């Protein structure tokens, strides 16, 4: 039985100023059946979020269209549970007898349909968890006893049952990243929906957080016979859980079919900048196949490889660490507590030398952002010793000068763009440093050129795309010529191509001498770009050493609560059978090793 039927659907947003907007959704046709785990993939700007809005009736019933232009903005039809959700029809007014085009269909899809957006914080409506979960039920006017029963049950289903006794005291923003998403899911589960639409529900979470959320979603699907539609960049999630996939670009469907069918098309992924898992990329590039298709999982890859029974490259050389370079960051016995008494850092020790590219990793709440803010002079009340370029950060006068040496690119670009012109935005920091105008012009031009935004120098940053905004924030810091650059989650919410661009840029900067400290949850990125990792765990440094050394140690990974990238997991599985094999940590290394085998053969 089909839950959703989309037939030749087109949509364009109304324009309030200037020219008409182009169509965001173009001629989409697909079907979602009851019990499906339906994946939607596509690069940024493909129209995925707009599609989620259309599938839940928000488009066009909330984001409306100009009167008389219904047929121009909405074409085709969407059916939900067998009834029309959205369609334009000529309707005759009973009183006047005049016929006019009208958007018809279900005006309200709740509670049968739930929609969870990327950032749960923006969806929270109340100041305590209990009322956050109960809000929808209160709207449904369920009796108090039923609300209580369902709220408790929903929290238990998403694994937050332990919070029930204090649910009325906990503010949703006090929860960790993963708990916030679970709470948001619970608020819909309590409404007993038949269809749950999730728009990138895991993008801000650490790997383990992601896994627990997706497991929770899948178990709920089985328990309540739910249909799930999920927009997700993470290919592992889609490949493991989805039975059907719609790939989109520029508002159009570029592929639609079973997960196996879609992920077999390597060209489609390369041309459209879509994320594919490490295993799939290794499969494509080495030609290994499992049951006639590219392998999806570590086990499938191992089977595909073992069936060939051939040896691979057994040697791998790491670059030597820059031991003789000067110490640029030095942290000794550092403790830090927040105003409410929460101790965020306990006895942190590490040294970073000039020219290093270090990955700072750990679960949500491990202390990564806190230590970075201490290094960049934003958090002052710490205990212990912190030195940057030999300057003591306990000295208030030194702290004021730190932005001249340490550049901090924050996670959310929207919170760090202050000006209405790209030029002014990059020049902002330079003007604060009272740099002569001529030099400002030169530095702004250079910085914008290196991030590929020079052509947009006179534009308003508000109208830049997501990836462009991210690059602009990097340029703004770059122009200040920092000796150390701290980048907080450089690739979150970015598509494959944007992430690659940012990472290439950081690598270039590193080659030209800038020390880089990248805070990230993206382990594939860590394995591909950093030679050294500092692993934070519950406010302390758990491991500080080579990236390979960390990923090779399964016990450490377990303690840190970090799920390594698939390429590493494949290595672990392979090493169990071939203990002498080195631990290859990324796709590139695996492909080199496998192709070497072919060359030798």
């Amino acid at each position, binding site marked *: 039985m089909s839950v959703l039927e989309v037939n030749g659907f087109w949509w364009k947003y109304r324009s309030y100023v200037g020219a008409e907007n182009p169509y965001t959704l173009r001629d989409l046709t697909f079907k979602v059946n009851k019990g499906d785990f339906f994946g939607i993939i596509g690069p940024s700007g493909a129209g995925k979020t707009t599609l989620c809005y259309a599938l839940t009736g928000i488009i066009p019933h909330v984001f409306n269209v100009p009167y008389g232009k219904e047929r121009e903005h909405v074409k085709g039809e969407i059916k939900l549970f067998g009834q029309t959700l959205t369609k334009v029809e000529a309707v005759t007014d009973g009183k006047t007898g005049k016929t006019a085009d009208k958007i018809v269909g279900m005006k309200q899809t*709740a509670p049968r349909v739930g929609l969870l957006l990327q950032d749960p914080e923006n969806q929270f409506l109340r100041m305590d968890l209990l009322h956050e979960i109960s809000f929808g039920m209160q709207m449904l006017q369920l*009796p108090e006893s039923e609300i209580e029963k369902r709220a408790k049950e929903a929290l238990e289903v998403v694994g937050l049952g332990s919070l029930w006794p204090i649910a009325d005291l906990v503010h949703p923003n006090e929860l960790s990243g993963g708990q916030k998403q679970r709470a948001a899911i619970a608020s819909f589960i309590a409404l007993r929906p038949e269809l749950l639409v999730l728009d990138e529900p895991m993008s801000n979470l650490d790997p383990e957080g992601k896994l627990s959320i997706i497991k929770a979603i899948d178990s709920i699907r089985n328990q309540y016979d739910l249909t799930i539609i999920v927009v997700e960049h993470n290919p592992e999630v889609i490949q493991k859980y989805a039975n059907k996939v719609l790939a989109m670009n520029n508002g159009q469907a570029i592929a639609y079919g079973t997960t196996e069918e879609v992920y077999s098309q390597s060209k489609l992924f390369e041309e459209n900048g879509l994320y594919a898992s490490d295993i799939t990329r290794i499969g494509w590039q080495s030609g290994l196949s499992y049951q006639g298709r590219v392998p999806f999982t570590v086990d499938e890859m191992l089977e595909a490889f073992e069936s060939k029974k051939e040896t691979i490259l057994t040697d791998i050389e790491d670059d030597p660490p820059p031991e003789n370079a000067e110490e640029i960051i030095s942290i000794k016995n550092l403790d830090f507590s927040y105003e409410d008494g929460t101790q965020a850092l306990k006895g942190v020790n590490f040294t970073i030398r000039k020219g290093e590219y270090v990955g700072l990793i750990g679960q949500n709440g491990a202390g990564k952002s806190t230590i970075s803010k201490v290094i960049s002079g934003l958090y002052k009340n710490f205990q212990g010793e912190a030195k940057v370029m030999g300057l003591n950060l306990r000295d208030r006068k030194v702290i004021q000068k730190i932005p001249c040496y340490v550049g901090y690119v924050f996670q959310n670009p929207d919170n760090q763009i202050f000006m209405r012109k790209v030029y002014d935005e990059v020049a902002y920091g330079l003007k604060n440093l009272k740099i002569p105008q001529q030099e400002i012009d030169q530095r702004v031009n250079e910085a914008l050129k290196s991030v590929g935004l020079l052509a947009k120098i006179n534009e308003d940053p508000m109208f830049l795309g997501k990836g462009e905004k991210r690059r602009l924030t990097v340029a703004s810091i770059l122009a200040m010529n920092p000796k150390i650059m701290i980048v907080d989650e450089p690739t979150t919410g970015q598509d494959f191509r944007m992430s690659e661009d940012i990472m290439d840029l950081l690598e270039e900067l590193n080659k030209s001498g800038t020390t880089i400290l990248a805070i990230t949850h993206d382990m594939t990125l860590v394995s591909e770009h950093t030679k050294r990792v500092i692993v934070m765990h519950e406010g302390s440094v758990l491991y500080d050493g080579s990236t390979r050394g960390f990923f090779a140690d399964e016990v450490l990974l377990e303690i840190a609560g970090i799920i390594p990238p698939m390429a590493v997991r494949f290595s672990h599985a392979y090493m169990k059978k071939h203990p002498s094999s080195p631990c290859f940590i990324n796709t590139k290394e695996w492909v080199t090793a496998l192709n070497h085998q072919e060359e030798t053969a």
Partner: protein
Amino acid sequence: MANPDDNARTEKKYVRTFIFSMRTGTPVEKLHVITKVFMIVAFSILTLYMFDIPVSQGGPDIIGLFLMMALTFILLAISRTAKYLVTSYLVLSIPVLLAQFFWWLFFSESLPGAKMTFYLWPGFLPIGISTVVLVVTFVLVYLKTRSIFVSLTPALLLWWFTVMPSVLSYSPLATWFKFPLGGAYSFSLPQWSAYVGFAKALGYGVLIYTSFLFLLTTRDAEIGGALRQLRVSFRKAFFVMLMFRNLNTILLDYESIRMAQVARASTVIRSGILSRMKDLAYVSIPLVATMIRRSTEMGVALYARGFEASKGMTDYKETKRLSSIDYMIMGILVAFLIYEVILGHSITALFVR
């Protein structure tokens, strides 16, 4: 054996309010929002009334105002929010109250027959103790800040305050030379002005801190529940609730935006007040952009939970009854109102007599 649920509740010591957090399990947490609103209203009436008690009847009721201030701070201390108020908003509110005091001092209407005691401009340039104050202040502040503007402002202010008494005292010790420079311009300052000015500042202080007490110790569910008890429709109640709830979000957004600004060297070079104000104005660009994005997503969240189609709303653990503490505080306030406003008495007058 202790109930684990009770343990969890005991361990959760603080709960978020509209701005900041308050201690759980205190009598203030149990206060009904209606009591807090009644307190603001009663204090407003009392304050305005206490200002206007004529000098002939003993003047403004300073002790009454002090009592109101004390009650506010006791409640703030019980809820453990006083420290937060002192370290954040008190710094901002004191200059405002001082400005209020001086404004009153200089620009209040004079009472008939009042003795003139104040010059804005004495008509000559006095050289004396005031000049020494000017030079010393300027040099000391300049050595510390190296900014002419920053040093001149306090120096001139102090100079002006020392000029007036030295001119008025006509003491040859205070004023060594006089350079005649145009006519004198004077203000008549009634004898009671300083007293009334102080009462005004204290009264407005009471109103400011009582409003903070409300924001520091109230949560959205309380407002929603109280409005529903007052028969306000659930949609209106919800939007009032959402408005207050967003205060908290805006404060958090402001903090992260300001941090990004500091990271872009906004505090590296000590800049003037004008450029600091400009920086504050720049915060508004990302702040407004974030607020617009949030409000769009909140609209979507409301739709997704059935708010638009809903015909009503079940009350679930939002409304609460007035407790004995509420009755006690309201009783004190009513007694105070009757004593001061209806009977026309003043607590200060009791002591003065």
